[in-house]
C-alpha cells in the first residue's frame, strides 16, 4: 500500500435490524462523522441463526449494514456509543483500518 497517496482512516461496519438502524445512524452523525453508507435487506448466518434478506413488504424486520469511515480521533467516541447499543441488541460491529484518497471527505 502506497501510504504517500492515501490517508489512513478507520472503517466501522455495523449490522443491526432495520428497527435499530436509525439509532446507529444518529450516533454516527452525532460524533461528527461526515457520512455513512446503508445497505438494507442484508442476509447472513450469525449466533441468532440465519437471517432472511430482503423482505418484500417489511423493511423494518430485515437486517441493515451501515458503514462509516472516520479519522482515528473520532473512533473512540463512536465506539463508546456503539458498545452499549449493541450490548442491548443482536447486532455486530467490525472495526478495520482503511485508506482513502480524499481525506477531506471524511473529516
Amino acid at each position, binding site marked *: 500500500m502506497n501510504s504517500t497517496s492515501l490517508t489512513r482512516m478507520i472503517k466501522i461496519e455495523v449490522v443491526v435490524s432495520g428497527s435499530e438502524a*436509525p*439509532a446507529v445512524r*444518529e*450516533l454516527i452523525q*452525532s*460524533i461528527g462523522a461526515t457520512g455513512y453508507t446503508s445497505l438494507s435487506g442484508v442476509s447472513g448466518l450469525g449466533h*441468532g*441463526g*440465519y*437471517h*432472511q434478506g430482503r*423482505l*418484500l*413488504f*417489511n*423493511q*423494518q*424486520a430485515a437486517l441493515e449494514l451501515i458503514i462509516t469511515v472516520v479519522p482515528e*480521533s*473520532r*473512533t*473512540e*467516541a*463512536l465506539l*463508546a*456509543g*456503539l*458498545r*452499549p*447499543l449493541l450490548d*442491548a441488541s443482536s447486532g455486530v460491529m467490525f472495526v478495520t483500518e482503511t485508506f482513502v484518497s480524499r481525506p477531506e471527505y471524511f473529516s
Partner: protein
Amino acid sequence: MTDTDNQRARLRSDVAVAARVVPTHYPLETFIAVNPLAGLEGMPFEQAIRRAGDLYGIRGVLDEAAFRRFYRDGRITDDDLDRALVRRFPNLLSSDELRLGDRVVSPLEFLRADLLHGTPQAGRGIGTPQAGRQILTRAAEHAPAVDDTVDAQTSKWCAAFFGDAAWAMPGRENGFYSAWRALAAGDRSLPRDVRKQLRLAAERPDDAALEAISRLGINDDTRAAYLQAHLTRMPGWAAHIQWSAAHGGGIDLVGYLAMRLSYESALLARHADSRGRQRHGFAAPNADVGSARERATHLIEVWGLHDVDDRQLATAARVLTAMPVTSRAMLWQNAFESHYRDDLLAQLGPGSRPAVPAPVHAQVVTCIDTRSEGLRRRLESLGGYETLGFAGFFAVAIRYTGLLRGASEDLCPVLIAPNHDITENPVPNGAGAAARRVSGATRLAGAESAFHAAKESFAAPFTLAEAAGWIAAPLAAVKTMAPALSGAVRRRLRDAVVPAAPTAINLAAMPEAEQVLFAQIALTTMGLTRGFSRLVVLCAHGSTTENNPYQAALDCGACGGQAGAPNARTAVAILNRPEVRTALESLGIEIPADTWFVAAQHDTAADRVTVLDTHVIPDSHRDDLARLERDVTRAGGALAAERCDTLPGASGRLSAARATRHVAGRSADWAQVYPEWGLAGNAAFLVAPREVSRGIDLRRRVFLHSYDPEIDTDGAALEIILTAPLVVAQWINCQYYFSTVSPQVFGAGTKTIHNVVGKAGVIAGHTGDLQIGLPWQSVSDGQTLRHEPMRLLAVVQAPLDRIEAIIDRNPILQELFGNDWLALAARDNAEQPWNRWTRTGWRLWSESRSRPMILDEEMVS
C-alpha cells in the same frame, strides 16, 4: 476527541437503549395502530406485561371482575378454565384429590374455584387492581410534587412546540432545546433559585443532560434505567418526539430529557435529602397478597364446608401456592381466548365447502381489514360473486399526488418506504373540467383558511361574528340537529363549487418491468392467477367522519392510515394495460381479453361502495358495471343494518334502507363519538382460500387474507403474508388490546374532552400527556366493552413444513409466535385437523397439554 465526546456519545446511546420501551406513535393525520409494547416483544407476553407494569404502572390485562362477568355471560366456561389450568400446570390431572371435611375435590376444581371466587388482592404485578410503577425517578421517590411539576412543565413546553397556535413558541425555528433554554428561566411560576439554575443550563442538550444527571447522582451503570423512568412518565410525548426526530422535527429525545432532567435537578436541589439513596431495583412490592392458607380458608367458607382440619387445610393451601394471585388474571385471559379460538376453529372445519356456484360474474378483492368480512359475506350472499382478501394497498407502495397537487401522501404500510411517485392527471380532453375543479378547490380552501384564520386571530373574531354569524350559527344548528340533511346539502354545495373532473393515474414514474413484477406478485399472493371473471374489482376502503381527530385510525392501515382509492386505481391501471398482460402471459398468468379490472372504495362509516373511474370502463362492460353498482348498494344496506345492531343510538332492528340513512347520518354528524366501531373485536387472521370461511358469519372479527398454496409452490407469497400483513394486523390487535385493558396509559381517554395539539395528537383537557392509543369510545359503548381484548390467532391453511421453514428463517415470527404475542393454528389442507404451533413442534389443537409456559414462581411443586 475528548472524554467529553465519549460521554456525549455514551449518553446518546443510553437514550437510544432506554427509548426501546417507548411506544411507537404516528401523528394524527397518519395515525395507524401499533403495539405500544413493541419494544418488549423480545420477552414472553406475560413477562412483558409485568415489565410494562413496572415501567408504566399498568395492569396489562383485564381485571378479574371483568373476566368473571364474561364467565357469568357464558363467554368463558368451566371447560375453558380447566384447559387453561391444565396447560399451565400439566401435572394437575395426575395429582391426588383433596379431602376438605366431608367433601372430596380435585386440585383442578380447587384452582378453578379460586379463579371464580378468590378475593382480589392488592399487590404488584398483573391481575391486581393497584399495580404501581416500580421504576421511578428520583423526584418520584423523594418529592412527588416535584415529579408533577416536571410533568406539567414538560406538557406545557411540548404543547407549545408542537401546537399550531396563532402565536408560535418563540425561537421554535432553532429547535426545541434551544427555544426552551431561552425561555425557561423567564417562567415566573418557578422559584427564583430554580430559574437561576435553569439559566445556567448548558448550550448543548447532551451536556445539559449530563450535568443534571451528575447533580442527581445517577451513575453510569444505572443511567439508561433512570432515563427510562423519565421516558415512561409521559410516554405520549416521548413517543411523538421519537417520531419527530426521525422526520426532521427539530426535537429529539436527548433535548427532551435534558429539559426534564434540568427541571428535576433544579427543583430537587431544594430538597436536602434527595441525593441520598439511589435505588437500583424495584420498590418493595406491596405485600398485601393473601397467603395460600387464607385463600384456602376463603374457598372453604364460600363452599360452606365444615370440619376441615389443619392438615386438610395445609394440603389445600399447598395446591393454591402453585397459582399465585398475580397469575390468575392471565389464566383467565388464556381461557377467554381459548373459548373464542376453539369456536372459530370448529366453524372452520375440517371438511371441504362447495366451490362458488357458477357463474361468477365478478371477483371482488377487498382489504384484509376485519370490516371487509361483512361486505364480502353480504355480497357473496347475492350470488355470482367471488371475493378475495389482500392488503388494501394492493401491493403498490406509492407516494401519491392528487389532481389538486399540494402535499403528496405515502400510501403504503409504514413497514416500507414508497417506491414510486404517482400523480393524478386530467384525462385527454379533460383539461377544462380539471381546471374548473382545481380553481373551485382553491377558492374553497382559501375561504376556509380565511374563516379559520379569522377565528384564531386576536381581534378578528368580533368582526367575523358580525359578518358571518348570521349564517354560521344556523348552519351549526342544522349540522347538530339534522346531520344527514346538512351533510347532503354540504356535499351538493361542494360538488357545485368543486365540480368532478375525469382523471387518470399517471404511471410514467413506474418502469414497465416493475409494473409487471407488481402484477405478478399481487395476483400470486392473493391466489388469483386463473379463472378471471369479466369484472375484477379492487375495492379499497376509507371512512368519512366529521370532527374526528382519529379519522386516520378508521382509514386503511395498509395505506399508512389513509383511504386506499389511489392504490386501487393505480393497481387497476397497471392490470388493464395490454403490455402488462402480455408480459404476464409469459409468466403463466393469462388474463382473458374480456376481463376488466375496476377500482372501488368502501366507505366503512356509511357502508357506501363507490365505483371509481367509471369513465374508463369500456362499453362492453357497462351492463356488468350496472349490476355491480346495484349489488354493492344492496350489500352495503344489509351490512349497515347488521352494524346498526351494535351502534349506540341506532334503534332496534332497522331495514336496509333506514339503516343506510342512519349510518350516513352518523357519518356526517359532527357530534357523533361513535361513527363506527372500526376494527373493534378483531381476534383472528385467516390465511386460506375463501372456501374455508365462505358462508360463515365471522362477525367482522377476522382479517381474511386469500392464499392458495398450490399457486405458491415456493412459499414466497406465504412469507410475504406472514412477515407483513400479519405483522401489521398484530399491531392493530395490540393497539386495541392495550387501549382496552390499560386505557389510562395506552388509550386516549374520552373523546369529549380531547384537545388537538397541532398535527401531533390530542391531550385530555388542557394539559397532560399526549394520548397515544385509541379513544375509549373506540373500544367501549360506555356500558360494555365493544372490543373484547384477546391476542390475535393466526389461522393458516398451508403445508406445515412450509410454515415451519418460514418461521425458522424469520426472527420476527419466532419472536411473535414463540413469545405468545400471536398464536398460530394451521393445517395442510381442509381435510386435516387444526394444529397448534409450539416451540417444540406441531401439536393437535385439541390437545390441552400442549407446551405449558411456566414462569418463575409458578412451578408446581
